[in-house]
């Protein structure tokens, strides 16, 4: 499971960090080009493909790519 964050769109709201039942997203301390604090992915192997992060993101910046 690849979790793709389109950093250019992220506004650092942290909804993904709050909503993920497996706590995969974490604050990274890294700033995007626009100056927003963007999340990083800590353990993508635990991803259950629930897609709550993809749904909750106000910028549609998260895509869960399924490995064939």
């Amino acid at each position, binding site marked *: 499971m690849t979790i*793709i964050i*389109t950093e*250019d*769109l992220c*506004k*650092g*709201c*942290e*909804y993904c*960090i*709050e*909503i993920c039942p497996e706590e995969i997203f974490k604050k990274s301390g890294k700033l995007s080009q*626009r100056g*927003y604090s963007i999340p990083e992915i800590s353990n993508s192997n635990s991803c259950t493909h629930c*897609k*709550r992060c*993809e*749904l*909750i*993101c*106000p*910028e*549609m*910046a*998260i*895509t*869960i*790519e399924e490995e064939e």
Partner: protein
Amino acid sequence: MRSSTELRQKYLREELLPTLFCSGCGNGQILNYTIRAIDDLNISQDNLVFVSGIGCSSRLPAYIEADGIHTTHGRAIAFATGIKITNPDLNVIVFTGDGDLAAIGLNHFLQAVRRNIGITVICVNNETYGMTGGQLSPTTPVGYPTITSPYQNIEFAFNLSFLAKAAGAPYVARWTTANSRQVINSIKKGLQKKGFSFIEIISPCPVSKKQFKNPKDYLNFFLNETVRYSSNVNNETSARMFKDLNECFTGDYLGKIIIGEIVDVEKPSFHELYKQLKERSLNEFWKNKAK
């Protein structure tokens, strides 16, 4: 379910992204849900028209690759009425906010419900006037401080979904931005409903509203403080579900956010009845001509 990347490419004017909405704004989430609902139903973008009034939520149509009309404050539903009547095959979706809908636009809202015009109204209710900085709106709860209620709001708030129900809407649903899948399903149901459908979505306003400082606090509030109405409640011991809408007016639910599908019935739409009217008018015309 398509991925966000694919959906953005198909449905959004990507050259305008990122949106003008603040970090954590509910409008972005509602954009996400609306596009997914349209995609699930396979509605062609050729057959979509988005209508909006004035406010943050009313900026949504510009981002969507489809016909859109960003009108004057409170009048979106009146414009949508003209559009839907003259082309009933169009899927007309109205984006509006609590101020746009329930203050200046209240009359047009209730009249369109009364007429059962087949539009889908998505109300982004953040209980304030977000675009102009956080003034009180008709849905601001009593007691709240806002920029125009510095000594606390002394006015009681509307429940927009109950208003829609009272005016006779055949489909009314009320959710928060945290209830992702329910919102998507309700928008789908609303689009398939022949008459008026109303989906009210309680949303955060992290910048203009004083309720919480961080977007994620809104998310947790929505997840924890909602009580759900369902006509199918079987489990009596569920503290957060209830069956009788009258219970909304008791003390237990003050401060809680009521969610659920409030109304889901069948009712003849304006267009169906107008078709019959046209038949009658023709009958009478030819009858009079024969005299």
